[in-house]
């Protein structure tokens, strides 16, 4: 029964064009991020082209910046940073959301009251404002620190949603049965409740992934990005700062933003596709 059900999901997942598009787009960018730096002949920070800014050519696939830096080399390195922020930042936010949501939803009572209050408070505070003020006071900023701060501030909506789901599951018969059989709370949550909302948890992660990428881009663009590497948001910041707009150097600012749009858009579309696969009511016929 269990394997048959898994195959059914797999069947609908492969048939779903939204999931397929999403996977292909993410896959292409992921491969580019992984092998891209190996294809690059120039150091992303070196002033490779002595003539300064040049449009894309066979030597410099995405052209060169105002200072003659290879845009493609920066782009693939920035892609790595983007995926890292998505996976680590989004992953951490999901993890905290899961822990808080499960605890609040399953325990109920005073624990729930306190955690729910905390969630609601942090939900109201604009994430970006907190990230800004933390980053502004850090002199050396690493990409890992950025991931951690993004993860620490992005979890509330996930916690709230997971709490609501747990609430509706914890009064079901199979949970009562597990309780009467003397299972520990921890086991009940991970063996009985979590598997029943696996799809929901995956979708939460996908949305957190996209959100972390957008947050990092905003932070980097305002000049508070990591100090030891380059990211897509920082590429856009430099482009605007050095007048790429006025000089018409479109190859400098189009690729990074377009890549973020496509990656996050693909994630959103995958999220919808996932919903359709796991929720038979929404399936297209």
């Amino acid at each position, binding site marked *: 029964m269990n394997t048959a059900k898994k195959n059914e999901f797999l069947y609908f997942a492969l048939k779903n064009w939204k999931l397929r598009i999403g996977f292909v787009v993410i896959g292409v960018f992921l491969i580019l991020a992984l092998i891209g730096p190996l294809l690059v002949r120039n150091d992303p920070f070196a002033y490779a082209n002595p003539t300064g800014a040049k449009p894309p050519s066979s030597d410099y696939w995405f052209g060169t910046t105002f200072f003659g830096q290879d845009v493609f080399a920066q782009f693939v390195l920035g892609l790595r940073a983007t995926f890292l922020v998505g996976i680590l930042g989004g992953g951490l936010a999901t993890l905290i959301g899961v822990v808080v949501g499960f605890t609040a939803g399953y325990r109920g009572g005073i624990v729930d009251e306190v955690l729910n209050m905390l969630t609601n408070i942090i939900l109201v505070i604009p994430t970006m404002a907190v990230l800004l*003020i933390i980053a502004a006071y850090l002199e050396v900023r690493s990409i890992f620190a950025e991931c951690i701060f993004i993860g620490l501030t992005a979890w509330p909506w996930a916690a709230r949603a997971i709490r609501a789901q747990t609430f509706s599951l914890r009064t079901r018969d199979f949970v009562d049965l597990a309780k009467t059989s003397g299972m520990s709370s921890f086991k009940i949550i991970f063996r009985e409740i979590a598997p029943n909302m696996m799809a929901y948890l995956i979708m939460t992660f996908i949305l957190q992934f996209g959100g972390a990428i957008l947050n990092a881009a905003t932070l980097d663009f305002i000049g508070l990005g990591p100090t030891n590497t380059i990211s897509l948001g920082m590429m856009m910041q430099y482009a605007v700062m050095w007048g790429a707009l006025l000089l018409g150097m479109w190859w400098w600012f189009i690729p990074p933003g377009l890549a973020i749009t496509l990656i996050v858009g693909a994630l959103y579309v995958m999220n919808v596709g996932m919903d359709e696969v796991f929720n038979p009511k929404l399936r297209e016929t």
Partner: protein
Amino acid sequence: MNRYFTRKILIYALTFFLAVTIDWMIPRFMPGDPIQNMLSRANVNADAAQVMYTYYAHAFQLDLPIWQQYLNFWGALFRGDLGISIYLFPTPVAKVLMRAVPYDLFLLLPAILLSWWAGNNFGAFAARSKWLDNTVSPIGYILSATPYMWLGIFLAWLLGIVLNIFPIAGAYSFDLQPSFSWKFIGSVLQHWFLPFFSLFLVMFGGWAIGMRNMVIYELEADYSHYLEALGAPQRLVRKYAFQNGILPQITGLALQLGVIVAGALVTEVVFSYPGIGYLLLAAIQNQDYFLIQGCFLFIIIGVLIANFAIDIIYILVDPRTRRGMTGETA
């Protein structure tokens, strides 16, 4: 309803308290020492540095016990004293921010309200219409995935540089003085359009998709089927679906405010539009910490006020909250 309100107000009060505490805590407990930084930039000899350090520590009251500093911080806050800006010395931070706020309101209010209104109507209209749905949904997803600054950069380049229709920097033409002439108002509107439009587009995508999904969901609900079975015209059924679908969109607006404000910050940076975002960039580049902290507080207060306004609107729109039927939505 009373319970709902007390709960909300308690949450906002705690949020404000927490935000002010963060604002006070971060400069004091983060690694690094702002005074030391300032002195190392001033490049004086060691003895003089020591004297200056004591002087500044006293001037900024950093030699007081920590709890005293915290209480003083609150006291200063209630007097409206946010310190002196270093970047625009010697203007008080509160004054600098007050000058920027009108531009923010002028940019954000129309962008938020119009995109919400247009997105909801368009999304409801597109739901269940095959052709529209197939075109609107992909565009909506792409728009809502677009980073705000990139759409701003893209529009500035396309409409400002390539087609040369709109100016791309400032709030009004540099050769004009603020006045109540048609020429000046025209210039203000011309400079306002691109930042407004790029904010509008990104938000529009999100609202349209959200509303489309809500309406489809409501049209599947029992009451819709019942109305249809009674032979009610399709327009009436859709009207009820819209009215029910709009409620989560109001809550959604409250939840999205933080993201929207962040989007406005970077959009202002792209267009050099003199709001809080542009100020913040200058503050970061000049290491003007008082101004950064002031921006943080202003953003939080703005978002809290907006949240409260949305709560009141929600109560006015949804009769169930007034009768205390949904206590747990808080």
